């Protein structure tokens, strides 16, 4: 038995989606192409396919999540997989079991894909070394959130037709943001020019080496941008003092209709959620369907995750 299993593992090692950094441009485009087909399906009344029938998907969430977890949940179900979501905040991990023990336990149940979110950067990489199924990263620490970047790309393509040649601003708490990192890698790979805007204390070290320009001034950073991605202030990850106050932050870095005028006149706003209204974004702006893509991002998120599951969980 063991021999057969080993041979098959060598023949067909599982593919993992650990981050945009490990992705080739062809792979990224293939996911986006695949996802386009699912947009229509998700809007129809009959949404169920049987592509993943008989497959088992485990959602292993070590950090609380609403939209990503439900999005992966729905995506798996719509493809016909059996989906189990585990909220690890309340499980054996609090009894002292390590992430590796948990992984091995679940691995013994022969899942076909594990979708993991973890507060530590690199946790999905570690997991992927130890299990013999596909691992999909649903966000690790401040490192990567690949499906978020992919859904952002799909949303932009859906509205603007392309990414190449666009100017994209990512604004806010870049330091603590995995969304920012994945988006930087993906958008630059797909040919966009990326500006990151943040107060100096929330800007990661050597960020320019990732191929972006960095700004501390919204006016300069937003100049001519087609897309403005706002990020949440991740207070839960902040230890020590980074900012004087939320009020001062909003004054200089909060997106208001006035500041949006610095960007290109048909600029669109994105936000990965959850939003702190009145901290990083003006509440009316966030709900303005003419400029805000927030709802569309959530909608297309399901399509992107379906595409990822389909392509990686064979």
């Amino acid at each position, binding site marked *: 038995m063991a021999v057969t299993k080993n041979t098959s593992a060598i023949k067909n090692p599982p593919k993992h989606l650990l981050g945009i950094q490990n992705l080739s441009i062809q792979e990224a485009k293939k996911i986006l192409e695949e996802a386009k087909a699912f947009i229509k399906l998700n809007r129809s009344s009959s949404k169920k396919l049987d592509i993943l029938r008989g497959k088992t998907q485990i959602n292993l969430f070590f950090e609380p999540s609403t939209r990503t977890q439900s999005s992966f949940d729905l995506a798996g179900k719509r493809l016909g997989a059996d989906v189990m979501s585990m909220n690890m905040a309340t499980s054996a991990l609090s009894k002292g079991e*390590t*992430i590796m023990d948990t992984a091995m336990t679940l691995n013994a149940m022969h899942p076909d894909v594990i979708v993991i979110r973890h507060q530590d*950067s690199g*946790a999905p990489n*570690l997991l992927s070394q130890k299990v013999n199924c596909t691992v999909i990263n649903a966000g690790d*620490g401040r*490192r990567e959130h690949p499906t978020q970047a992919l859904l952002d790309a799909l949303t932009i393509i859906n509205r603007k037709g392309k990414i190449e040649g666009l100017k994209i601003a990512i604004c806010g708490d870049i330091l603590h943001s*995995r969304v920012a990192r994945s988006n930087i890698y993906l958008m630059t790979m797909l040919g966009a020019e990326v500006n990151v805007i943040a107060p100096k204390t929330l800007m990661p070290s050597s960020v320019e*080496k990732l191929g972006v320009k960095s700004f501390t001034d919204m006016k300069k950073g937003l100049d001519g941008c087609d897309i403005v991605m706002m990020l949440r202030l991740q207070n839960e990850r902040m*230890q020590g003092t980074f900012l004087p106050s939320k009020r001062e932050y909003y004054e200089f870095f909060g997106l208001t209709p006035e500041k949006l005028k610095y960007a290109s006149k048909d600029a669109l706003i994105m936000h990965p959620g959850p939003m702190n209204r009145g901290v990083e974004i003006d509440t009316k702006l966030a709900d303005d369907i003419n400029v805000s893509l927030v709802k569309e991002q959530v909608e297309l998120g399901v399509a992107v995750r379906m595409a990822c599951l389909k392509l990686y969980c064979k």
Partner: protein
Amino acid sequence: MSEKILINARIIDPSQNMDEKGSVIIDSNGKIKSIGKNIKQKDASSKAEIIDIKNNILIPGIIDMKAFVGEPGYEYKENFRTLTQAALAGGVTSIVTMPNTKPLIDNVSMVDFIIRRGRDKSSINLYPCATLTRELSGTQMSEFGLLSAKGIIGFSDVTKTIQNTETMAKIMDYASDLGVLIMQHAEDFDLSKNGCINEGEVSTRLGLGGISYIAEKIIIERDLTLLDEFPCRYHINQISSKQSLGVIEQNKQKGKKFSVGVSINNLSLNENDIGDFKTFLKLSPPLRLEEDRIALVEGIKSGLIDVIVSDHRPEDEESKRLPFAQAAVGSIGIETLLPLALELYHNESLTLNKIIETLTCNPAKILKIKKGTLKVGSDADICVFDLNTPWVVKAENLKSKSKNTAIEDRKLQGKVMMTFLNGNLAYKI
């Protein structure tokens, strides 16, 4: 024990500026009787045991100023027996052991225990450190006088730094009177908190908290300022950045007396080697940029850095097989200390003499011990190595109980062939 003569050796002993082909005669008490190019086989007694060194290099036994034993409390990571085997296989004959065991070496009865235990279980020379502050609290200084009288060689909080400037000033003031050696780990914890690797592009890409070079530099600057007022025997365990080196240079130019160490890891690796979250390369101080590594090598060359240490920190697999931020810090290295240092000779960064100096007579000078030399009359602690043997590091072949080497699969050139302790052959390949 009978007299021995080691013939056909290339003897390198920086303590007496010796680099020559010759022989060494070891007397029946395990001391060096005579040494050098003029010694012939006939100078030894007729009964003397003859050992052919076969033109390999013969140097004083290596002194490693920073290694962790594991006893008491962490025997599952390393014990005296396994550490000794690893050390001898690396040509190391003297070790300064770190006090962060469980319980800590911070009181007189623990010193008695550790010395007795070391004597029973280990054949090499062990020089135990005690903690700089009681319970590693960083507040109450240890009993320097009483502990020194019991045989403690120096005082260090190992991975912790005295954060409070007043406490550090008092420690240095008190220590200057007693003449005890203070060994500081330089890291400002407020600046380094949440960090686990060098702050820069790699930490940004891996999404890990970074430790800026400032955390190290600022403590060195503070301590060297205090040293003006309180001239104690002060040693910085390990430095990692070119900025720290800059501060050291300025202060040494002013004539201040202190000593500096560096880990072989920081001389041989940089932050890019961490790759895809290799936790065995999670070190403290962290691996930094290639330009820092080059600066540190230059620091050895110019004499700003006095010693190279292994910073041997055995960790079991469980404490390393965790997400990077949670994984334990450190790597083993005592067995590969010399072979990895020889890489710096083979790539023409340093001379052999310089490398050996930092591993033998320099640490002896700092520690004020009669080791690290082959002068007539000294203990015949000797390491013999082949400069050119190529080999590949495989954790499974290393003698340490823990297998967390930072240089798995590295191709090295040069290997220890024999190690003598007090004239006795204690290791042979």
